Structure formats: C-alpha cells, structure tokens
C-alpha cells in the first residue's frame, strides 16, 4: 500500500468543512484546495485519501479534480504560479507578447515549471482585472499593466 500522504493538519482542515454542507461530496473542492495549498498539487494517493474522508469512490473525486484545470496532479507546481491573462482586454494591450516574452526568457511553455522549482508559467483566461490590462496574477499578488521590463523585474523578485 502506498504511503499515506495527508497530514493530520490537512485531515482536520478538511473535516472542519463537513458541517457546512448537507452532503459530504460538497467538501470535494475545499479538500482539493487544502491539499493543493500544502503540496502544490494533488497526487492520486491524496485523491484516494480524500475520498475515504468524504465517503466517496476515488473516481468521484478524480472526476471532479480532472474537470478543473487549476489542480495539478503529476508533479508539484513551482513555488510561484505566474498567471498571465490572455483574454480579450489584455490581448488588446499586448498580453500575447507578454506571455511570449516570459515563455522565451524562462524557457518554459505555459504549464511548465523552472528546473529549480521556482516558477510555473501559466496562461489564464480573464482574471477580472481588465482595467489593469495586461495583468499577471503571481500567486496571490495582482500585477497591473505589466510591461516586458516589469515582467522581468517580477521574475527576478520571485524567491
């Protein structure tokens, strides 16, 4: 049997959500978020353990996980996920060039992580900050009206 992956802390955090909903299955997304925050991805073994807690078949959890592009499964995302918006308002103000620039300088395709595990480059659909186009969400920080030079600065500042 594979080694257990969820820590007591994660399990407690997941269980704390159960009273909020009339069904345990509704805790699926909160549980995936909790695991993702700790492990930066949700490996299959975690899916199996979440299913145990929520009294579901692992396939039910996996089905949900696979629908949402947000959760990685194969390997952890970098310490900073850099989401570059590519939707219309940002595209009109140079988002494609910005994404191409970051892709070139980091030698990454969107979805890939730097070898040092520092940065995962991602494209995003509208980040809901179109007045600041083109914009980037780097983990929890929104960067507004980002030029290529500012993007370089941002990349440098990520630890």
């Amino acid at each position, binding site marked *: 049997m594979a080694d257990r992956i969820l820590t007591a802390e994660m399990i407690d955090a997941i269980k704390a959500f159960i009273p909020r909903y009339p069904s345990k299955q509704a805790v699926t*997304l909160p549980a995936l978020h909790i695991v993702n925050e700790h492990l930066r991805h949700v490996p299959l073994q975690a899916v199996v353990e979440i299913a145990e807690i929520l009294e579901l078949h692992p396939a039910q959890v996996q089905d949900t996980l696979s629908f949402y592009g947000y959760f990685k499964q194969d390997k952890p995302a970098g310490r900073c996920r850099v989401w570059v918006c590519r939707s219309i308002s940002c595209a009109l103000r140079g988002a494609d060039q910005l994404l191409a620039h970051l892709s070139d300088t980091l030698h990454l395709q969107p979805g890939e992580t730097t070898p040092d595990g520092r940065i995962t480059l991602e494209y995003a659909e509208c980040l809901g900050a179109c007045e600041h186009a083109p914009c980037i969400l780097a983990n929890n920080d929104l960067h507004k009206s980002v030029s290529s030079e500012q993007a370089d600065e941002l990349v440098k500042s990520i630890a």
Partner: protein
Amino acid sequence: MPDFQPVLLANVGKPDSHTRRVYEQTGGYQALRKALGMQPKDVIEAVKASGLRGRGGAGFPTGLKWTFLPQNHPGPIYFCLNADESEPGTFNNRILMEDDPHQVIEGLIISCFATQARAAYYYMRCEYPLAFQRTSAAVAECYEAGYLGQNILGSGYSLDIYMHRGAGAYICGEETGLIESLEGKRAWPRIKPPFPAVEGAFRKPTVVNNVETAACVKQIIERGVDWFKSIGVPPDPSNPRDAGSYGPKLYCLSGHVNKPGCYEAPLGITCQQLIDEYGGGVWKGRKAKAVIPGGISMGLLKGDELHCPLDFNGPGKFGCLGLGTAAVVVMDDQTQMIDVLENSCRFFSHESCGQCTPCREGTSWATKMLTRIKHGKGRLKDLDLLAEIGDTIGIMPGTTICGLADGAAWPIKNCLQKFRPELEEYIKRTNPTGWMETKPVPALQLQTIH
C-alpha cells in the same frame, strides 16, 4: 465627468472601506434592520416593485425569480451568491468585494431573509485572493456583530454564510454549473426545467443571484423603490416583453480607452457617452472600430453604432445578444478582427464544459479554423463554415444545454455580419495562392503561444 452621484461605488476608494467600522459610519446595516422589521414577502414585493433585474448577465427580474420558490416548502431553501465573475471584460463584482464587501453581504442577508433561505453559499472564483480575504473577514465581522448566525438582531431569523472557492472554470458562473460545482462535481450545467428555484443545490429550492444584484437589493431597501425607479429607463412601449431597465449600473470599461475602469451610471447611457465622458475617449486619438457592449458573449458593435444605449434592451437592437455584464471593451481602428475573433473562440473552446457536442466541437473547430486563417492558410469557404457554426450552436437554436454556446456564437455571427469584407481581404492577402481552395485542408496544430 457626468453629474450622477455614485451609490454602489460611493465607498470605493475610501480608506479602510472594507471594514465594518467604516461601513457602519455611513449607515451600514441600517437597511438590514429595516428589512428584519418587515415581512419577508414585503421585502420581495419591494424588490419586485423596484423593477430590479439581475446584474449577472441574463437580466432576469429579481423579485419575480424569488416568487418562483415553492410556497410552504418544508425547506431548507438555499441561496447561492454568484461571485464567479469570469466573463472577459468584467470586473465590477471584484471591485465591490474588495472595496465594499459589507454592502454585498448586507444585500445578501436581506435577500436571504426575503427568500427565507437557511444558508448562503458565497461562490467566489479562486483568482480573487484579495476579494476572498476581505469578504471572509467581513463575514467574520458580521458574526461578531450579530448580523449573522442564530437569531439575527433578535429577529428570530437565523442565517449562515459559507465561503466557497471555485477552481478556475468559467462555466461555474452558469447557475446550474455553479450548483453542480458546489455539490463537489464537475460543473456540468443541468437541463432546465427544473429551475433552481424549484430544485437546485442539494435538490432543494435555491436562489442564485449575482454580487451586484445583492448590492442593489441593499440600496433599494435603504433608499426606497421610488428612488430606484427614478434612475434608468422605463419599458419600451413597443416591446411588450421589456421589463424596463431601472437603477444604477456598474459599467466595466477596458481595452483601447484612455481611462479604463469601473464606472457607475444610470442604465441607458450610450456606449459613446461611456467611452467619452467616463473613459476619456479612445486612446492615442484613434477611432473605435468595434466595441463589445457587455462582455465578449454579447457580440460586437461597429464603430458607427456607438449611439447604442447600454440598457437591457439596447444592444439587442444592434444585432448583439444583450447587455450581459455591461463590460464594454473598446477596439481601436488598428485592431484586426481576425485576432479578436480567434481570441474569443479560443476562450470559449477552452471553457466549454464539453457536455453538448455542438458546443464542444463547434467552438474547437472554429478555433482551429481561425488559427489556420490567422496563419495565412485561410480560404473564403471557411467563413461560410464559421457562419454555420455561429448559427447552429446555442440554446437559442436549441442545440445546447446552456448559454455558453450562445456566447460563443454571437461574436462569430456579429463579426461575419459586420466585418466580413475585412476578413475576406485578410484571407486573400495572406493566402494569395489558396484562398479560393474548396477541398478539405488539414488543420494546423493548435498553438498556445507565438
């Protein structure tokens, strides 16, 4: 700047506007006290009488929606606040949630009281970390103050608000997709009927409303029905189905304008007014070639259609789908429509939930064709195929479960109706040897960037 005094945005930009202390200084939670002193059905009547229509995209009358809940149901009734805001161009909910979360929460509590909901799920997209943090803190402040929890302010009414985070899927904004997602499943919209009011979250009667709608509810209770009806436009007498467009609206202005931003104005201002009087005009002294009137799903206005009024009825008169989220995106005269259309189709093919074949295949084939055209391998015949896709996917022709496909179809349709000569010229110019080809051609590999 026009002389309309913002109401929904009145607190935005003030120091600490997201805290309960500041919110209460400007009369916050007085509307809740007032509502709790009324009968729930009288709150519903007030909202009905105000003519408030949902701000999330469909413009359905809010009070009327609430009356669809079954009478004398044993319960529980659930309320879902739709804060999934992902329509490209739209950011008004984010601004409310970041800078005035209590206004939204007060409106939400009043709406729950009116509908006698037992619990509210506040479904927020996960790309809004600041809004999530401030709203969660505001909810906690409400429990401390007795605005939430058991026996709110001694009224006998009890309510819990639970924050629930999405995971990066546009379709979770569709109300039944949201419900499925809330239940822990893939966000596959449900066939309606039954509508959520009859059978929604956890198979119980459920109301789904938008964040801005909730903020309007709070203002209606505070300022009265007459105030709300004094703003906006009355029903069009020549259109018996029009319910009017009352109240203030948050317009999101972005793209090629000098001052992009979220502006509050009475429903019914024209696109031109919004761009010139609020947005400082098209940037670089250029002219607008095309304008999205209400989020990309709504289609496109041409540069000479900017007298279009931005009320629930206006964009429809110009061949667009509707007012949508009132997200106005301006494109200057240097913009290539092929780029706009490719961007739009790529978005919808990325976000299609994949349940309905016409939507899944239509959006992805349109994207493949547009990518090919963009890279100089287009044929005139492709435009006919695109037009066919535009005409055949969506709830309107009756081939799909939800409105995402209509949203994908409208930019295609409008682009072909209004900008076909430009697309033809592009194809002939970039594919001088193959534009008249009619035999099938292989698709290019889809490229994510470059």
